[in-house]
């Protein structure tokens, strides 16, 4: 199944080769051209004579990078993207060559200092470890894909869920508009891929498709987004306040087509929309997000209904008269 394959593919920020390969398989049959750029963005272009629209979903995931291998074969590491250091212990990580490691820490690491943590890949000594991994190699969380009762649990739903949505939109769309489906790189380390992609695509309109938090778990910070409550139309996050015209258009389309939607105010974190809307002479940018619980954990959770709503809404936007 497509989403399972997408979530389980390897692709920490800056090392998106494997996930790029997988996505290009899916998008190539439906695109007029598919290419990658110097930052590792994968761009599928569906040509049209109408407005130029950029859809952006980042394909990278958070991870770790090896910085040191000690004489006993234990690895030290840095984080790639926003990891919760308190939740790292005994997590499994997987390298691109398939080796698995376990994260643990030295004693007395009360403040969860990452410099005191290590990855155990089961090597007996440095020599053996160096045959398995090198300094600079990256690894990602392990987190199996499960689907039941309309809910999906997996690693990397942030933001392979967004990639899935873009692919589905591309498959189904019938539009006169000139649409660039951008699977962006390096979002988790600072919206880097989208910045370059927005510059080269130079669109009039853009939608960033990403995950967002929910406000429906026990005693969590308040937020008017619920799992299963529909596509989240982004109002703001810390990188963007969305364009009012785009936002209103999305809401109107949702109402008209009976697509469930909710309004998203996300107070921590940013999205590709932040990098896109200030590109060149400014881009009218909005966002459609998938309500997601436990973001940046190996067990992120989304609702299938929400995915469907996002697909419908984005498709409607791209097919509309802008």
């Amino acid at each position, binding site marked *: 199944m497509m989403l399972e394959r997408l979530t389980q593919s390897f692709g920490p*920020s*800056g*090392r998106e*080769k494997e996930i790029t390969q997988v996505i290009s398989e899916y998008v190539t049959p439906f695109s007029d051209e598919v290419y990658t*750029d*110097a*930052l*590792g*963005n994968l761009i599928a272009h569906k040509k049209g004579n109408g407005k130029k629209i950029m859809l952006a979903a980042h394909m990278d995931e958070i991870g770790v*990078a090896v*910085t*040191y291998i*000690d004489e006993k074969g234990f690895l*030290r590491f*840095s*984080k*790639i993207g926003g990891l919760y250091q308190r939740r790292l212990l005994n997590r499994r990580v997987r390298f691109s060559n398939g080796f698995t490691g376990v994260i643990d820490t030295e004693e007395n690491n009360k403040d969860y200092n990452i*410099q005191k943590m290590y990855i155990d890949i089961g090597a007996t000594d440095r020599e053996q470890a160096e045959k398995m991994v*090198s*300094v*600079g190699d990256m690894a990602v969380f392990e987190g199996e894909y499960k689907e039941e009762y309309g809910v999906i649990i997996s690693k990397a739903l942030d933001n392979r869920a967004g990639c899935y949505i873009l692919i589905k939109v591309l498959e189904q769309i019938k539009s006169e508009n000139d649409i660039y489906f951008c699977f962006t790189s*390096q979002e988790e*380390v600072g919206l*880097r*891929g989208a*910045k*370059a*992609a927005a*510059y*080269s695509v130079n669109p009039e309109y853009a939608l960033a498709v990403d995950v967002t938090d929910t406000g429906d778990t026990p005693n969590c910070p308040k937020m008017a987004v619920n799992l299963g409550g529909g596509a989240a139309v982004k109002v703001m996050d810390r990188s963007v306040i969305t364009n009012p015209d785009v936002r209103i258009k999305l809401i109107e389309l949702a109402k008209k087509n009976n697509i469930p939607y909710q309004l998203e105010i996300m107070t921590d974190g940013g999205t590709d929309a932040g990098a896109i809307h200030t590109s060149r002479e400014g881009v009218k940018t909005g966002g459609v997000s998938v309500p997601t619980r436990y973001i940046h954990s190996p067990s992120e959770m989304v609702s299938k209904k929400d995915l469907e709503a996002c697909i419908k809404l984005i498709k409607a936007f791209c097919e509309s008269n802008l």
Partner: protein
Amino acid sequence: MFLKKLCEFDCVSGNEKAVRDYIRNEIYQYADEIVIDSIGNLIVKRTGVSSKKTVMLDAHTDEVGFIISGITDKGFLEFKTVGGIDTRVIISKRVRVGKNKIPGVIGIKAIHLLEKSERNEVPKIKSLYIDIGASSKEEAEKYVELGDYAAFDTEYEDLTDDLIKAKAIDDRAGCAILMELIKEKPKYDTYFCFSAQEEVGLRGAKIAVNRIKPDIALAIEATTSSDVAPSEEKDYVIRLGNGAAVSFADGATIASEEFYKKLLSVAEEEGIKAQTKAAITGGNDAGAIHLAQGGIKCATISVPCRYIHSPAGIASKADIDSVKQLAGAFLRRIDEFY
């Protein structure tokens, strides 16, 4: 050797004119085109055998330091830091202030006068001042005006046959390397960019790259070598004397796997000492360059330097030579990097 001369300029971010003029005069003869832009980048083009491609080499001219923000009634100078400086390394150090390099010291209340509880405290930067010996505000104003820069007053010295001690090795070492590399005619049009204002946020490179529009770029930097007694080996990041440091990632850039691994393999083939910089910290001009335009291939090679951003850094001449060799090999074998 350019390095000694380069390290003795007082050119804090925003005040790079002196070192820029020196570099321009030294390499004038090799330049096919010279631009000094609005932020003070010195961009020198050397036309290649072919103009099919455009290559950018970057080193920054600025150093960390201070800027005078006030003069007290008694003639002491208030200052702000320019670039990232650890307050603990500036106390009780000598500085030179302004165009006329007025000598001054960063004083601190004598230990005898401190409460016991104050002895372990790091003083706030706002409580420190520069003393130029002026007896009054009026006298100080004769020598210094608001907005004047101040830089560390440190001599360049050879510590051993290989090791040097100086301020501003970050990144005058890179400038020295570019000044050597420009002497050889490159395969493709190559821009040697001596960038301003790296230390306050990669500001010069950010705009230079939009003028140059390269297909590929290499930043030549100096980077922290933590291989000093109090650190654990796992935190060394790189070691002095182990050669050119190639970054797989830092705080501002993740290098493409092909690019940084190619640099390491070229080093091995050419017998150049090189090591992987093993920490995702810091950031340099590559961070600004690789995001520009529609994205630009960019990597970083660095000179290991102990006690970076302090009055006195230590670096190895052999390492500097390794960086130069590797950057030279990059230019010679440029086609292999595309």
